């Protein structure tokens, strides 16, 4: 399994389109930090009562992270899963005697490694620019870095959920659609509507807090609100129910699937 992981990581690192996407996102994050420092927005644009630099910083960072799924999430998905099916390297590995269970775990660990790599890379870049320019982004640095790790965590979860479709249909395109819908928050928006159903609203039950994006949102609020205990609990729930469980389910589904040449 280690051989598979190492080979694939090296392969992805040679993929030009993947590297270009990461470079674009890194540039966006740095730009957000610089803009937050240099060009504070008028208070009215932020809609915040606090005013000044802080809300404008939030807007710049929000815009930079709006593109995060496009320049980080989708390239990771494409480099690992779409390429795997397209190149039929999976068949080669299974035909060589590597079990499907090991292969799915290997691909999952590759996603973890790439997500970690991007988070470390962006952290290093933001700090480097901070040091190099002598400009302290101040709160922006802190916010960008926290957001990078949260977004990567979310990407891992959404990707794991999409694996059920990827391995169930053996069509990474279908999994990619689900992945994009999850990233865009389409399901969470629909489920927010469910909260309005009289039974739930009467009993103060918010289903939207339990869906993947809801759990991440809880974790995010806890991190920014300096509530580490709540953040850890939300993170653990997300890891168990929306990362590990979908991977295990994918293995169960894929073990019985026939692979085409």
């Amino acid at each position, binding site marked *: 399994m280690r*051989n*598979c992981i*190492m*080979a*694939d990581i*090296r*392969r992805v690192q*040679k*993929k*030009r*389109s993947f590297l270009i996407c990461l470079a674009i996102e890194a540039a966006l994050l740095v730009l957000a930090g610089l803009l937050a420092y240099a060009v504070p927005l008028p208070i009215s644009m932020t809609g915040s009562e606090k005013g000044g630099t802080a809300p404008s910083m939030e807007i710049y960072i929000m815009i930079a992270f709006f593109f995060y799924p496009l320049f980080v999430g989708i390239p990771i998905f494409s480099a690992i899963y779409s*390429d795997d099916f*397209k*190149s*039929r*390297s999976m*068949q*080669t*590995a*299974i*035909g*060589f*005697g*590597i*079990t499907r269970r090991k292969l799915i775990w290997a691909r999952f660990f590759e996603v973890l490694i790439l997500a970690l790599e991007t988070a470390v890379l962006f952290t290093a870049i933001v700090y480097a620019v901070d040091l190099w320019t002598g400009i302290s982004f101040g709160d922006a640095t802190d916010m960008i870095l926290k957001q990078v790790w949260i977004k990567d965590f979310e990407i891992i979860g959404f990707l794991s959920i999409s694996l059920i479709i990827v391995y169930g249909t053996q069509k990474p395109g279908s999994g990619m659609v689900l992945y994009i819908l999850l990233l865009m928050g389409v399901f969470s928006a629909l489920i927010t509507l469910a909260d309005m159903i009289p039974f739930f609203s009467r009993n103060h039950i918010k289903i939207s807090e339990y869906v993947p994006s809801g759990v991440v949102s809880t974790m995010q609020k806890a991190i920014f609100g300096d509530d580490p205990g709540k953040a850890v609990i939300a993170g653990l729930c997300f890891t168990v129910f929306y990362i590990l469980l979908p991977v295990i389910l994918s293995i169960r589904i894929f073990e*019985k699937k*026939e*692979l*085409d*040449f």
Partner: protein
Amino acid sequence: MSDVVIAIEGLKKSYGRHVVLEDVTMHVNRGDIYGLIGKNGAGKTTLFKNLLGLSAFDAGRLSILGAQNAYENNLARRKIGFFISHSQYGYLNARQNLHYFRKVKGIRDKKEVDRVLEIVGLNTKAAEVPVDRFSMGMKQRLGIANALLGKPEILVFDEPINGLDPQGIHDVRSLIERINREEGVTIVISSHILSELEHTANRFGIIHNGRVLKELTPEDFRTADKITSLKVADRDVDRARQLLADAGIEILGTEQARSSLEENYFELIGGEENA
């Protein structure tokens, strides 16, 4: 005594009510070029999928290199190299692709890539561009190089000449024969083009509607015909007729030998190397 490297007995596979393999029995001996012949949909690819562990069979027995159970078969699969069309990353070149698969297969020796590139004739400048820019023939050769990584004892080829031009067909055929002869690798090859396998294989399995009807050798063809042909030069035909008639030997028929289409093709384009 022959050394059986693949033994399949009573193999069954169905998808719902649709039976794809029904009581398939076949044996491949060490050193064979075994041609699996059958029309499209006969069950060749399904049989290969079962052999390679890409699909599970419903009943029967499969033994690779003497393996006794599924676990041992899975280990034995490490000694099988198999060729799948387009099993490569388009944005990597031939060498990068092979290094990738070398690592996946856990082969430490980096020179292994040079060895297989040389065998398939891709150790050239032309092979240093991304695979997306390769011709079909080059892609097939890269696929064969991939299958050869790690010096497998058995090579499995599913329809390796599909989509190739005459030169490509000729190259792949020569390559398969050379690998068998020089590397001593047992080869199992499927095709629905009978003439192609007749040129290459030394044993044949005829598969039809999910059953291997018969296993044959070229010897079987000769005894089945019960006819031996003699070839003489055009100028000697009359004299040969007379001599045979004088000896009381009946001539069943005569046929003027002609060169093959392939020979004509290569002659017209000025040799195999110009194709």
